[in-house]
């Protein structure tokens, strides 16, 4: 059982008392100057708290969270692996934290070398010709990648190609990124083996096709066995292949996506490369491409000239997708992890991620139906259809009572009552055994005492929350 902080915690505004302050500045040593007339702000409704109150408040809030540091967190497609503390120690150096982005390049050689080395390593891992570290997240990498396809089509004089193919198992960010780049999406169904239906793909390929976005392994946790054929067919039709690297943790050191014909791809450094997810970011969505699309990468990118490093825009770059050079602090963490893991370690990462997922699948699939009878990669999808009247949501919430974070639920959309489970390589066999035991006990409870599931969680700071009310009458800030 977990030991979460169950006390109600007031809002910062409710803790506020007039006259308190949590941080003081040195006394000003310059004269005062008058503010411009007509532009003076008279009120500022921020709370007033002393330092200890702020410390207790946020410490107590933190205790209301599940996290990797405290619980097993098998969220499918999120790769909630351990985030090494050395990453944080490395990133805390004053030489990174207090480095201004507009310092002259000769005064940022350490930072530029890190960017260059990370680009080099990631493009090798992916089997690509070049990489850019500008995108701030996976979806930002997708947006950059589809814009690169747009730019390449423009150079070919083929902007009439507006159709982007998206498998029905894809993350929602894929179609949303296409819309932001002006493409129109067409869904490609999965076949009975969980892979892209090749006949449906062939039927969709015409001279309006811009490309396809593929996640491999897909969100069912299955490798797209026909990846080479898919790439060949799309290329023959004049389109490009975008690789969504959300699930790269299954493949590091085992398979280079670039070698199968993928033209451009992002990696989520906050998944595969162990940087913390921070309760919703910051991430880093490195994007890499083959020779044909590399000139279109977003920039600036780091380049090495002789013994020194500088920033340059790729020749036909789509431009900048954010200010400055990416989520640099996240990149420092990913590079630290890469040094510690190395080429040999990355293969062991993939081997153990896949081993752990298949082991956990073997432990639960007798009770929770797994729709595709194949070895999974780093994750698997099971169905919560164990007892009539009990839903995946109930199972997920009951797992909380056993001290486990629920898996990803109701995704991918093509599996009814989906439970998408990704244990990662950093979990021990005993943790997987305990989790499987909990899943099996819950299945028993579902048959014998279903109310235990319907009313779950029982051991969390709050019970199930009314999400309908939240959306219908939105309260989005403190109204004191």
């Amino acid at each position: 059982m977990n030991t979460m902080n169950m006390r109600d915690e007031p809002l910062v505004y409710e803790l506020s008392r007039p006259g308190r302050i949590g941080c003081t500045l040195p006394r000003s040593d310059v004269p005062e100057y008058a503010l411009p007339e007509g532009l003076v702000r008279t009120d500022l409704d921020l709370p007033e708290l002393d330092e200890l109150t702020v410390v207790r408040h946020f410490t107590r809030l933190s205790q209301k969270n599940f996290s990797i540091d405290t619980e097993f967190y098998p969220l499918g497609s999120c790769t909630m692996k351990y985030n090494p503390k050395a990453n944080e120690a490395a990133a805390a150096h004053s030489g990174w934290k207090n480095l201004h982005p507009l310092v002259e390049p000769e005064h940022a050689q350490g930072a530029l070398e890190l960017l260059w080395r990370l680009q080099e390593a990631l493009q090798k891992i992916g089997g690509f010709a070049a990489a850019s570290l500008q995108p701030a997240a996976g979806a930002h990498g997708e947006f950059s990648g589809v814009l690169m396809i747009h730019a390449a089509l423009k150079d070919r004089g083929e902007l009439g190609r507006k159709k982007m193919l998206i498998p029905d198992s894809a993350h929602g960010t894929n179609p949303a990124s296409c819309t932001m780049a002006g493409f129109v999406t067409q869904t490609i169904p999965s076949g009975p083996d969980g892979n892209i239906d090749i006949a449906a793909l062939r039927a969709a390929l015409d001279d309006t096709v811009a490309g396809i976005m593929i996640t491999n392994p897909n969100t069912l946790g299955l490798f797209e066995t026909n990846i080479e054929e898919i790439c060949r067919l799309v290329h023959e039709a004049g389109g490009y292949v975008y690789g969504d690297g959300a699930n790269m943790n299954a493949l590091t050191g085992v398979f280079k996506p670039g070698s199968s014909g993928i033209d451009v791809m992002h990696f989520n450094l906050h998944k595969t490369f162990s940087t913390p997810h921070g309760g919703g970011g910051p991430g880093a969505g490195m994007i890499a491409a083959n020779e044909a699309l590399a000139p279109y990468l977003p920039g600036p990118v780091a380049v090495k000239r002789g013994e020194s490093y500088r920033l340059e825009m790729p020749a036909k770059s789509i431009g900048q997708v954010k200010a400055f050079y990416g989520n640099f602090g996240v990149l420092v963490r990913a590079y630290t992890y890469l040094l510690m893991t190395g080429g040999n370690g990355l293969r062991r990462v993939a081997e153990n991620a896949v081993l752990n997922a298949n082991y956990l699948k073997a432990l639960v699939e007798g009770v929770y139906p797994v729709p595709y009878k194949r070895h999974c990669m780093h994750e698997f999808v099971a169905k919560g259809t164990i007892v009539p009247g009990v839903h995946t949501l109930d199972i997920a919430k009951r797992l909380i009572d056993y001290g486990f974070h629920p898996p990803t639920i109701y995704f991918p959309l093509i599996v009814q009552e989906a439970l998408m489970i990704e244990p990662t390589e950093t979990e021990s066999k005993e943790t997987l055994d305990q989790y499987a035991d909990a899943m099996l006990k819950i299945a028993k409870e579902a048959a014998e005492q279903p109310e235990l599931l319907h009313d779950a969680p029982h051991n969390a700071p709050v019970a199930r929350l009314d999400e309908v009310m939240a959306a219908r009458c939105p309260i989005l800030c403190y109204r004191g």
Partner: protein
Amino acid sequence: MPFIPNTDAERTEMLNTIGVESVEELFSDIPAHLRIQKLDLPDGVSEMEALAALDALAERNAQTTKMDWFVGAGAYNSYIPSLVPALASRGEFLTAYTPYQPEVSQGTLQAIFEYQSMAAKLLGMPVVNASHYDGATALAEAVLMAWKAKEGRNRILLPADLHPEYAKVIATYLTSFDIELARYDGDPERASLDERTAAVVVAYPGFSGEVYPVEKAAARAHAAGALCIVQADPVMCAIFKSPGEQGADIVTAEGQSLGNPLNFGGPYLGMLGTTEALLRRMPGRIAGETKDKEGRRGFVLTLSTREQHIRREKAVSNICSNQGLSMLQTCIYLAALGKQGLRHVAKQSYDKAHYAAELIGRIPGFRVATKQFFREFLVQTPKPAADIARALAKKGIVPGLPVSRYFPDKPNELLVCVTEMNSRPQIERLAIALKEASK
């Protein structure tokens, strides 16, 4: 490797349970000719060796703490109280995912709600979302949001005096759409609006530091049927009238200087707020208050029918992971500084910048070109600003950003930024050094 607990004995046991001979068998779906055994990368090293390599790289960078630092231009040298990183780096915040399971994410969700509350007050807007990647992408998304809200209008007015990187990011975001980006000079009140204009963007302040009031520009935009977007300095908003109070429809800001380190340009914090009327067109995550079945207050992610995981190609944006931890740092920073503290930061920056401008303005050959500013101003220099900066760097002074870095046709302009971190002796040394360098 310390991050993989499985021992060889356990691996064998697990393979037996699965019913396969080897791990390689689990990879049998990958065509054999595409499988590799090893990457062409060095083997992994110990934590001790990795940290030594990282420290050696970090030591080669200039640090604002070791110099007299006067460069801003979108990234500000500000004080971060010790409690901010101490609290934000707690593992329970740091290693949690996006709060999809609200019952075990109340810490993150309440922090988002508190950030939204404080940021909304600061910017003067009814609602603020949970974050964007940075100020530039927040502004680009705001432009797209305004364009979609004003169907049939495809012209966006941008100030000529906009951070050049922001202008580039907006151009990238609009690549595939038929949107005309027109630039206007000077006071936004005089920007030429027409029936094709979807929105006018006001920089508050501009890249040069110049501050124009928003109120009349917003009123004129509304009269012409357009929206008013304001890109604001959030610290300035502690002592200057907020954009919301002056009629802005969408406000974006770079929140880095509210508790986030410089970090060579990221991670930073994109802030975006809007009106009730535009709420359902706003991109990004939003936390909302609700109750559990026992009537206790709790928080959830809400209005998600705007978002990609529900709406897919019809979503208002593709944003998913955002800048959660940067937002948390800002939330803690705002709670700690509070009403008085943030005003002190803003007023000290203002006073110190104006003191610096006064001293620099008195040096023969130098002229302060910005008329009304907060903490950053443009100086016309008698010699190329880059040469001056190079000479002063040898004395440990970084006097400002030579504008030629972005605009080679403006060699004799220096953008000087003064924050609460600069002391009077530093400012006086700067003035003396500038005078010497101009000889």
